[in-house]
């Protein structure tokens, strides 16, 4: 079941890759060292203003995006670069048996441009990927 979904997801991603308009905010991308490819989504899909939300995150091999990596450590943070501050909450990352990460405790308390950063560690090296996120429908 999960394998099927994975390939389904991958097919969807392939169909989308490279077709994003410049104004769109990507929810997938390579880490700075190129070792990992991050897919993420929010729950609810539209990030709420000043209320708790969750993220679902998958870490894939940067060189082979069909290969999901399940033995990495994931760290998540968010900040508003223009304000030079982060969130008022410290999110909690948990990993399911399937290897998907759930991040709870996310909260964007101010409207504007946020930078969502994922850090992936294999125990020795850490690579990061950051995504611009506009917040939020009030």
């Amino acid at each position, binding site marked *: 079941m999960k394998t099927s979904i994975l390939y389904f997801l991958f097919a969807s991603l392939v169909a989308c890759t490279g077709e994003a308009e410049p104004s769109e905010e990507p929810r997938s991308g390579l880490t700075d060292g190129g070792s990992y490819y991050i897919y993420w989504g929010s729950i609810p899909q539209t990030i709420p203003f000043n209320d708790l939300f969750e993220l679902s995150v998958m870490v894939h091999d940067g060189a082979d995006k069909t290969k999901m990596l399940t033995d990495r450590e994931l760290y998540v943070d968010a900040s508003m670069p223009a304000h030079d501050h982060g969130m008022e909450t410290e999110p909690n990352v948990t990993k399911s048996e399937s290897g998907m990460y759930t991040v709870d405790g996310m909260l964007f308390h*101010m409207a504007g441009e946020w930078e969502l950063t994922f850090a992936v560690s294999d125990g020795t090296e850490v690579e990061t990927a950051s995504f611009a996120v506009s917040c939020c429908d009030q």
Partner: protein
Amino acid sequence: MTSEFLRWATLASLLIACEEPIPEPDDTWNKIQSLSPMGELPDDPTNAVFLDPAAAALGEQLFFDTRLSADGTVSCATCHQPEHGFADPNPLSETLGTTDRHTPSVINAAWNRWFFWDGRADSLWAQALQPIEHPAEHGFSRLEVVHKLSEDTELTSSYAEIFGEYPDFSDPLRFPAQGMPVFDEPDNPLHQAWMTMNETDQQRVNRTFVNVGKALAAFEGTVTGVNSPFDRYVQERSQGQSSDALNAESIEGLELFVGRAGCIQCHSGPTLSDLQFHNIGLAPVFWADPTDVGRYEGVTALLENPFNGTGDYSDDPEAGAKKLSYLYVDAEKLGQFKTPTLRNIDRTAPYMHTGQLATLEEVVRFYNDANQVPSVGHREEIVVPLNLTEQEQAALVSFLKSLTDPAYP
């Protein structure tokens, strides 16, 4: 398994949608609409009687009852004065001593996420208990509170209708006349008296004391002011009607508020507060503690408070835990204080946690200049000079005055 599947399905739907773009930021009118109406009074799951009218009636009695103080002169209303927007017209309040910070208004306090300027309480009931035992405020102790209620059969009868039979505290060997835990002052006579009690009796006193707080909170939940000229303006305009609720100057101020002045960045949502904490860069004043670190210590105090939403006296520890789970302390919290609501702000001068700005004109000028240097922490980068003209500053003040519910003359 079901939850896991839903997560996969949710992620799949996101990906299939080919990374739908997040909508562009709201336009001016959408931002204005985000500020009104206030909506329903939020319930407090940690307080089972929060919406109980009988509890509110008892709480109202207690709110104005000066017997709950060391010298019989101080009640909640001593600082939260109804004729001054349930706040205090003085920068700091004079009770048995002098308060450390300016007294915030009770009006609409139920919409807060955190309480006190430093957020060291997570519910109205937990907030209400602290001034009673503060030596410079009511100067009372929880044992004195439960004994004082015992003397008044009307109060104990009201209590019994809400919380069940009022406990018997008449045995002086089990229940000293005065006492409360003061763990950082082990030699304090109040603490020593408290420690003579067994744990079961301590819990009985705590439970009764907490119920006093929950009744007070129920009353405070009825102190609302949500129908301002601004609300009428938004309602009428949203319905496509013309509106005379705001004059031209107030409308100019409103547009500045959500636009170039950027006030909405922190004063957001129907409460006109992001319910969070910021260091806006206030210079120290001689009557307030220049080393006040605000939220930096507030987080720890909240997590250590046995009366927080996760504790034994919470009516829904799970809900309380959800609120507290993600708090943390770092240096950015130095000198941060809670963003106050701006509703009814015209009735609650002076302003800021020190009460150092006497008028709304001074508040707007403070943000317009943004040139003060705080004694603790640093001014957030978001607070920059606004370069507003005198007319624009006056317009902002005019808008702020339109946020007052006429119920508070």
